[in-house]
């Protein structure tokens, strides 16, 4: 097996349930009745490999699944099916920055550092350099809710780059800062690049992507439309955009709606069948292909329902608990209760001990 990759996705899909009301959500939660809700497939089977030391860009229109991919890679959300293999620690920088609003900047630095597994000592070492990088000066002891949005995202970015991850995922985080900060970030990214770190860069801005990335993937309504050298993919994407802009508003709307409909209609079983067919075409035995695909799609997924063994063991445990509780309440001995279960219903009225 090829060991040079850092991130590998195979046939990854992600499904979201579109609940209409809060009660539907709760019904689903408690497994009461079957709530038939539409499913939306944010990713319809994506496979890609990112090599070590590569700067990889992801582009695409709004809602094409870019953020979903970056969240899955960083381990924030689990995929619905497919294999995800990430070698090393990830650090994600998103617009929200994930700061606690009522803590001060300094407290946020400490909290985030701790959550990423740093020791207090390590945090104190990078603290000054974070404050310097984020350029927030005396505001560091103010609650984050008083920060401007630019300061907040600068702090978020500064923390994320200073905890020294192997893999850095930047999800549209550069679009908020001003030019000076942007330049600083780019310098930092270049520094990371030189250190041979892997960077995943999600952005709308084609110029940024062009400047930074080695390779680019173009996501299009849940599918990987194209993957390849930066120049090439960006050119195709530009062409698509300009063609799309030339269409009338009505046509554009219709196109988007059709694509969304496809994402709702997407059927996971059909997808599995098509994968098996692909394998068979490659000359692999059908049974073997079925097994392979099953393994690839579901091996990493913890099943949505309890397995049969779990159910049986849980059932036995509940019965056992009921039995011992009754034995204790009735005041009979365990052996007596086993021999004459009916006595459980006739508790001893006096003290037994």
């Amino acid at each position, binding site marked *: 097996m090829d060991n040079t990759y850092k991130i590998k996705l195979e046939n990854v899909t992600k499904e979201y349930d579109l609940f209409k009301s809060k009660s539907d959500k709760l019904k689903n939660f408690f497994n009461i009745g079957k709530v038939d809700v539409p499913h939306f497939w944010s990713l319809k089977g994506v496979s890609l490999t990112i090599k070590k030391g590569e700067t990889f860009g992801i582009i695409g229109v709004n809602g094409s699944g870019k953020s979903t991919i970056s969240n899955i890679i960083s381990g924030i959300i689990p995929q619905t099916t497919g294999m995800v293999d990430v070698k090393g620690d990830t650090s994600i920088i998103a617009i929200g920055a994930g700061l606690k609003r009522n803590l001060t900047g300094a407290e946020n630095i400490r909290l985030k550092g701790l959550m990423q597994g740093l020791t207090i000592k390590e945090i104190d070492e990078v603290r000054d350099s974070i404050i310097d990088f984020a350029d927030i000066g005396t505001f560091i002891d103010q609650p984050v809710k008083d920060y401007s949005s630019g300061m907040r995202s600068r702090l978020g970015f500064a923390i994320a780059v200073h905890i020294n991850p192997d893999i850095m995922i930047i999800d549209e985080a550069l679009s908020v800062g001003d030019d000076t900060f942007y330049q600083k970030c780019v310098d930092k990214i270049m520094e990371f690049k030189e250190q041979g770190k892997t960077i995943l860069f999600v952005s709308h801005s084609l110029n940024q992507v062009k400047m930074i990335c080695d390779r680019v993937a173009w996501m299009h309504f849940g599918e990987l439309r194209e993957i390849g050298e930066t120049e090439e993919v960006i050119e195709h994407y530009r062409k698509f955009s300009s063609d799309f802009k030339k269409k009338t508003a009505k046509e554009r709307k219709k196109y988007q709606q059709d694509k969304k409909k496809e994402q709702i209609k997407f059927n996971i079983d059909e997808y599995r069948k098509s994968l098996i067919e692909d394998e068979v075409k490659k000359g692999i035995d059908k049974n073997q292909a079925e097994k392979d695909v099953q393994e690839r799609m579901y091996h990493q997924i913890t099943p949505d329902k309890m397995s049969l063994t779990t159910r049986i063991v849980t059932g036995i445990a509940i019965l056992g608990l009921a039995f011992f509780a009754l034995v204790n*309440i009735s005041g009979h001995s365990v052996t007596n209760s086993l021999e004459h279960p009916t006595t459980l219903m006739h508790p001893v009225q006096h003290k037994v001990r």
Partner: protein
Amino acid sequence: MNTMFKIISDQFTNFKIIRRMAKYDDRANYQSHYLGLAWEFLNPLIQIGIYYLVFGVALKRGDPMPGVPYLPWMVMGIAPWLYMNKTTLDASKSIYQQVGLVSKMKFPINVLPSIKIMGNLYSFWTMMAFGVFLMFVNRIWPTISWVQFIYYFICMIALMYALGIFNSTVSVLVRDWQIALQSVLRMLFYMSGVLFNFVTSNFPPVLVRLLELNPFYYVINGIRESLLSKGWVWQQPNLNLTISFWLFIFIVMIFGSYLHNKFRANFVDLI
């Protein structure tokens, strides 16, 4: 079941993070208070004072366990109770409180209850030390029975985590859970034999045997019996109760980890 083992092993692999964050949590909580951490101990001491006046002095009715005065007996029970009460409530809030933060970074969400369990231990140890001090004042000395404390301590942590993972998940989904839990705990306070020993009281024997099944009572009574050298785990009724206790933990843990796993991805959307 695999999910359950996975979650349990996560607690051990992330032990360092839990310890550091528990420390930080403690400090951050009391940062804006003049007396700071002292409140963690002042608060329970005031409570103990009131209960002693009401139940020990005003309603005096003899020793709750043969040969043990009321005050050390009560402190030995109220220390684990206060710990468990606070931890159960804190742990059930733990995911809800941090969801904004953990949804933006890679972090094992299932350790959040553990951080509260760990953090509250500091005041638990102080209270226990106070209880032991009162024991010595009353000339009750340690015996071999003290080793059982280790076992009951493990029971306590297991109970806290099982309830923690279950309650924290359910609280995210159903906000009322938190309030309901508070009421239940307030009721359990009087049902767990913290302030008076219902085994030696005038309660009907059937009711006493029903109340014994309460897992909180199992831990509180166990800690008392082991430190005051009044009984062993394998003696009845402890044996029955031990089996029931662990079956209860197992069931809560199974459902808790199942729900936690199922809804982990949706925590952010569910609020």
